[in-house]
């Protein structure tokens, strides 16, 4: 891949100075811990020097969540036909109810369950344990929501601390209810971020779900699974049709608008296509080892990456699919050119800084670049080394990379680099908007979307233009 062209005013030396100046304002111990997580980009190195997946430094105001958030919010919550039980006190379930925008088909409460099911632990449950309550709860849930295809039990902090055995309860109830009952020990204190919650959830799928079902139809040569698309703002609904248009059959989606039985039968597909590598690479590797299913990372943000990805997918199949790929690319090229003709002139030369979860900073760079926007800084809340290794070549030399950035650091960085847009989360949004800096939420698509696929790019382009060029920013400076 060709190296990014340099960004005006950005050099390795300047970026390193910015990092050093920022660290100098921090207590010595904290600065020492934070230093390895900040760096100036070297696109050509094989391994990114920025360290990741380490504990949050106490008190610095990290933006990270917990393992439960990674399990409930990311992996399990989007599966539409299961009852997901937030097992423990009231809060976790309430805060994660409807706040990720993983949209789903179905009739709520009948065939889909975009709701908050919880055991609402009280003091007596902490003292006497919650296993009995959980049993009763699962029975009640199954009776009141009979069309559920399974139930997941997602542990909150106290459950692991008091020594409850949700695995035993799940095993017993799976037999009794004759339905999948999946335990997931995703207590929030485990690990260093949401990321362990993804991993634990993948393990739960490996141990309790995969291979328990088979598709009613014969497996076909073009059967694939869509892994790591959570249907934020309808992303799956913009991505899946493209795969179908090139002749593939999407047998299951992990997990956006997903169905658990189809997920359980995924070990029969021919290829796993993975969008969010960070949260789902584990199960791709398991399916590869156990069932010899190859997997391929792809990127459906922006026409350049979509075309690249479609061709790479085509390579996994025969001429028929490859021809379809070219047809599809040709078909949408005109639409995409129209989008670029409208928005690019207003966005050319702008810069943006990104800080999102574990995938999107690197995955969206191409979409920004399609619009003429350069990325001067990027980082992740909960990425690992392999994510940073995939990021470095996508960014210009000297661009700023920050892992698990604190509010203090990000403010300094933005103040210095003065981007035209910051793309990050709800906790960061209003900090930067107060400073008059255009902002888009990049976890939730800021209540818009989809952003995946060709349909998504039209919306992405419109939203980014709207954010940067809104006349409201012109009012920030008061004349008196």
């Amino acid at each position, binding site marked *: 891949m060709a190296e990014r062209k340099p960004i005006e005013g950005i050099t390795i030396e300047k970026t390193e100075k910015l990092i050093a100046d920022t660290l100098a304002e*921090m207590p010595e*111990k*904290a600065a020492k811990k934070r230093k390895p997580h900040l760096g100036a980009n070297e696109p050509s190195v094989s391994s990114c020097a920025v360290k990741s997946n380490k*504990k949050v430094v*106490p*008190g*610095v105001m990290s*933006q990270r969540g*917990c*393992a439960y*958030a990674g399990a409930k919010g990311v992996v399990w919550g989007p599966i539409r036909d299961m009852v997901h039980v937030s097992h*423990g*006190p*009231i*809060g976790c379930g*309430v*805060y994660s*109810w409807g*706040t990720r925008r993983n949209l789903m088909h179905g*009739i*709520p*409460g*009948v065939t889909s369950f975009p*709701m*908050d099911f919880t055991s*609402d*632990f*009280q003091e007596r449950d902490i003292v006497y344990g919650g296993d009995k*309550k*959980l049993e009763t*709860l699962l029975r*009640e849930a199954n009776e*009141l929501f009979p*069309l559920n295809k399974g139930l997941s039990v997602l542990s909150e*902090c*106290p459950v*692991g*601390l*008091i020594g409850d055995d949700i695995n035993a309860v799940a095993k017993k109830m799976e037999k009794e209810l004759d339905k999948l009952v999946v335990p997931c020990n995703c207590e*929030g*204190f*485990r*690990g260093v971020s*949401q990321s362990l919650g993804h991993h634990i959830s993948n393990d739960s799928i490996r141990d309790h779900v995969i291979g*328990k*079902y*088979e*598709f009613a139809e014969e497996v076909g040569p073009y059967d694939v699974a869509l892994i790591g698309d959570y249907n934020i703002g309808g992303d799956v609904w913009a991505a899946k049709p493209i795969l179908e248009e090139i002749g593939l059959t999407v047998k299951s989606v992990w997990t956006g608008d997903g*169905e658990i039985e189809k997920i*359980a039968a995924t070990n029969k597909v021919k290829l796993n296509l993975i969008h969010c590598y960070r949260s789902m690479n584990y199960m791709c590797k398991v399916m590869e080892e156990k069932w010899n299913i190859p997997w391929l990372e792809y990127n459906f943000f922006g026409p350049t990456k979509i075309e690249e990805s479609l061709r790479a997918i085509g390579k996994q199949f025969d001429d028929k699919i490859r021809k379809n790929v070219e047809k599809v690319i040709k078909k949408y090229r005109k639409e995409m050119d129209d989008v670029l003709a409208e928005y690019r002139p207003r966005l050319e030369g702008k810069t943006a800084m990104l800080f999102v979860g574990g995938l999107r900073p690197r995955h969206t760079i191409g979409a920004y670049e399609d619009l003429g926007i350069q990325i001067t800084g990027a980082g992740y809340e909960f990425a690992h080394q392999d994510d940073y290794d995939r990021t470095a070549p996508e960014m210009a030399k000297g661009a700023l990379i920050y892992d698990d950035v604190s509010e*203090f650091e990000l403010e300094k960085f933005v103040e210095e680099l003065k981007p035209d847009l910051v793309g990050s*989360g*709800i*906790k960061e*949004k*209003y900090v930067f908007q*107060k*400073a008059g800096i255009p902002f888009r939420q990049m976890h939730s698509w800021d209540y818009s979307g989809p952003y995946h696929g060709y349909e998504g790019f039209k919306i992405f382009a419109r939203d980014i233009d709207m954010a940067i060029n809104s006349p409201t920013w012109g009012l*920030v*400076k008061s004349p008196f």
Partner: protein
Amino acid sequence: MSTEAAVTLKKVTEHSPEEIERVKNWINSEEYKEKNFERTALVVNPAHACQPLGAQMVASSFEGALPFVHGSQGCASYFRSTFNRHYREPAAATSDAMTEDGAVFGGQNNLFEGLANAYALYKPKMIPVYTTCMPEVIGDDLNAFIKNAKLQGHIPEDVVIPYANTPSFKGTHIMGYDSMLLSILQELTAGQSVEGKCTGKLNIIPGFDGNVGNLREYKRICELMGIPYTLLADASDVFDSGCDGEYKLYPGGTKLKDAAESINGKATLTLQKYATTQTMKWIEAEYTGDKLELPMPFGVKKTDELILKLSKMFDKPVPALLKKERALAVDAMTDGHQYVHGKKFAVVGDPDYLLGIVSFLLEMGARPWHVLCSRTTKKFQKEMDALLASSPFGAGCTCYINKDLWHMRSLLVTDPVDAIIGDTHAKWAARDAKIPLFRIGFPIIDRINLHRSPVVGYQGAINMLTMIANKFIDIKDETCEDQWFEMMR
């Protein structure tokens, strides 16, 4: 293994349309309602949150205060996002990020490091600390930890560090509000009580209220009446600050000096007694001056009650402007009563909010019908029943306590009403029942600016009436057949 797996392998199935139709109808039935009300372990769509959320609201509401979560970092992110989404404002809070080793060894080292970093980076004047489940289950001793932090020099002596134990497995967000407020006041007023001194000021405690317009309305009423006051705690500028090109980490809040002096006040008034039980009990014993509880001033009568009380207590006449505002509110209500009279309402929310909203509905001649509080006491239920009994328009209404929004859904589909009042979470039940939701409460995360528009005071009564009546008229315009569509309504 493989043969065993083959035996147990199930086919992917789809529910038949008939089966779906059957269940769809069943969940709207009387039979389902009964089953639904029989559940003992499962909670579905609760209408309350956990203690530390309430604690964080108080912890944010003082000058230079940086909320500090002792426990799991994910909790802090959840609380922050909740406030971000509701107010569309920054909501700074930090955490000491306890993990597995904290579970084994306790969180003292995390707290030491966290306090030192938070202080160095964000230069707060006060760091209110509150807990998540984790340190509560393992039994961390915050009192000792904080003392040690100061003794060992992790944080300067003069930084105020109040703390509250706020386990999520007890009470709700309003109990966390109460515990944190109590702790902050205890800390700030320590040694400040002066025998015979009176600042002449009124301390007003608004309680857990996500409506900054309400807080400003309280302040405005005091100012109009010429009553010096201290709002404990004042979230209004913290969670509603202007955009002028500069982000301010500490944009407002109750001045620490004012809070310290509050112990020598002329009077202390809580407007949410259910959210300030412990605080008021302590104030009763420690503060000078009068202590009183009044209902939240929803509607005309409760606002009258507040103003009369203030007028009497501070010997101030009711200013002409407030008299005029009262008349304007009554004018709006008499003019608009026909759009609301007799309409049946379901209401869900926190205890003090519920009492206020129901009181307003009764004043309008509306019929509160299902009143539901997700977690509260029998005492509240009794008070609500008494309020309902005080008006003929309260007849037929039932107050449910410790029930959730899935119970409410059953009520709405088996015993229909015209509208529901509550926070955003009620939108699912409202949609299933095909009735409008009037968003009054916390959080409101799907509409803009409602948190800026007061629902208390005379102005609040007009605002609520406008919202409710116009929506009913909109529905008529949007749904009526052509021959019934007309110019005037």
